[in-house]
């Protein structure tokens, strides 16, 4: 109990610090400031897009992971969880070396199509997806492994082909796992800083998400940074609570 209380305090105290230090008279001005709206909008766009991309790529990845065994599985698992242990800044450098103008993939893209990924909103989305997708994959894979295989077997025996089994049985049964994975993924993407600043850079309206805006503001106008953080916090809480009701009905 005491340890649980200590754990909770570790979360609550910094939050209390933010709220105690918050210049409440500035909240209004900060809220209507175009920079805030721009950064907040960009943050929501990037994090939600990253979550959508993670869903599209991550669920099939989790399926493959849950169906492999042995050494291959170990290797695949390690690869997918790598971004979780890699310092995000290193992740950003790695992304530059892969998708940058002179990177592995980026170089041909640039030469053939004149595409440049770094310093674009796409880069911010890629950075967030890179860092956040493992949370979704791990959650969905866990859900798949604990799924009673007889549901899928029953569906097959009733004449459903692989696609119908997946769409009508597997996917709906995985919904709680997908939901919690997507929430974790989205939260991680929303707070992403290191990989974004390294890979996507920092430009208001294009790649400056709220965490970057907070970092810049912290050094020039700390009060504004605190207000920005609180806004981010409030928006995430509102979305989490709203989604919970919509997706899971009564908890």
């Amino acid at each position, binding site marked *: 109990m005491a340890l649980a209380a200590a754990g909770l305090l570790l979360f609550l105290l910094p939050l209390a610090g933010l709220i105690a230090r918050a210049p409440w008279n500035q909240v209004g001005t900060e809220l209507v400031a175009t920079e805030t709206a721009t950064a907040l909008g960009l943050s929501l766009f990037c994090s939600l897009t990253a979550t959508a991309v993670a869903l599209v790529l991550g669920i099939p990845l989790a399926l493959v992971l849950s169906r492999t065994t042995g050494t291959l599985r170990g290797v695949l698992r390690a690869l997918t969880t790598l971004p979780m242990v890699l310092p995000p800044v290193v992740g950003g450098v790695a992304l530059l070396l892969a998708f940058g103008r002179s990177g592995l993939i980026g170089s041909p893209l640039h030469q053939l199509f004149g595409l440049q990924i770094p310093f674009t909103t796409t880069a911010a989305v890629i950075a967030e997806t890179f860092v956040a997708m493992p949370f979704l994959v791990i959650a969905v894979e866990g859900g798949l492994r604990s799924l009673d295989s*007889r549901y899928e077997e*029953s*569906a*097959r*025996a*009733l*004449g*459903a082909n692989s696609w119908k089994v997946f769409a009508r*049985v597997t996917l709906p*049964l995985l919904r709680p796992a997908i939901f919690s994975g997507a929430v974790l993924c989205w939260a991680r993407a929303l707070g992403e800083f290191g990989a974004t600043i390294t890979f996507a850079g920092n430009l208001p309206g294009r790649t400056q998400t709220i965490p970057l805006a907070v970092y810049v503001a912290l050094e020039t106008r700390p009060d504004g940074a605190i207000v920005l953080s609180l806004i981010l916090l409030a928006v995430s809480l509102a979305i989490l609570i709203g989604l919970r009701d919509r997706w899971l009905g009564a908890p």
Partner: protein
Amino acid sequence: MSLHAVIEVERGGFSLDIDLTVEAGETVAVLGPNGAGKTTLLRALAGLVPIAGRVELDGDVLDDSAVGRHVPTEERRVGIVFQDHVLFPHMTVLENVAFGLKRDRSRVARGWLDRSGLGDKAGVMPGELSGGQAQRVALLRTLVTEPRLLLLDEPLAALDVSVRAEVRRELSRQLAGFTGIRILVTHDPLEAIALADRLVVLEQGKVVQTGLPSEVTARPRSRFVADLAGVNLLRGTGKDDHIELDGGEVLAAPESGEGDVFAVIHPRAVALYLARPEGTPRNVWRARAEDLDLRGERVRVRLSGPVPLVAEVTPSAVRDLRLDAGAEVWVAVKATEISVYPA
């Protein structure tokens, strides 16, 4: 329409090796102790487990490892009903029943539900059904797809004893209207006898006995079946008018034939006495009552001694004989009460 299956499955030290033929319209009950391979057999027939061998249903070759043929489960038209219904929890009863239908799904499914007296449950989620209702829906869900082969994996085992009889009746009614082949896995002899035309007894991955329920229970060929039928099974060598049991004892029995034989003694034919009985019975020995078990109107007494047997007596006999665990008694078995048949 008939099924012919030669199936070999090898998996982690366990092996299933079966040759099974089932005729059109027949219900076969596969009986066997836990781990005998009953469920593996069903899964193999459903195409859910890779096999070596050949499975032919209604002239269609579903599996033939010799030519690398394997028809996937979804194309076999083989229905499988699991022990605990496995209804899709995110769909209503109607959606569950309609799942395997191709056209006019809702109307057809509703028709089946209505005919089974489950029409009022159409909009209900499976979680709100009782165990018996859920199992009936699960059976319907499979029957609407008109499978050629229906596989039932212990369909009543997960149900409360109180509803089992009702669901068994329903099951029996549904099966009667079903024209395909039915294979029922169970470890409940009552279920097997009530629902099946023929029993197949499986032990350690092999068929040890097959036949009509009455034949199988009358002439058990394994300890498992003898226990199911509630009879004593002994094995020995027939010597015309007596049997030399594997334990070394000699049992008088007429027409024992020659060679390896089974001998079945019904527990009611095992008579118990306080003093050595006089008269005709030639099979008399002293034994010890190990434990007593009240079964309805009778008491089953497990005896140790030269020939370990179970006797069935009336409660008043227990009183008269002052029987209790550890009591010494005389045992007599009339030679004519012993049924002997070749092993």
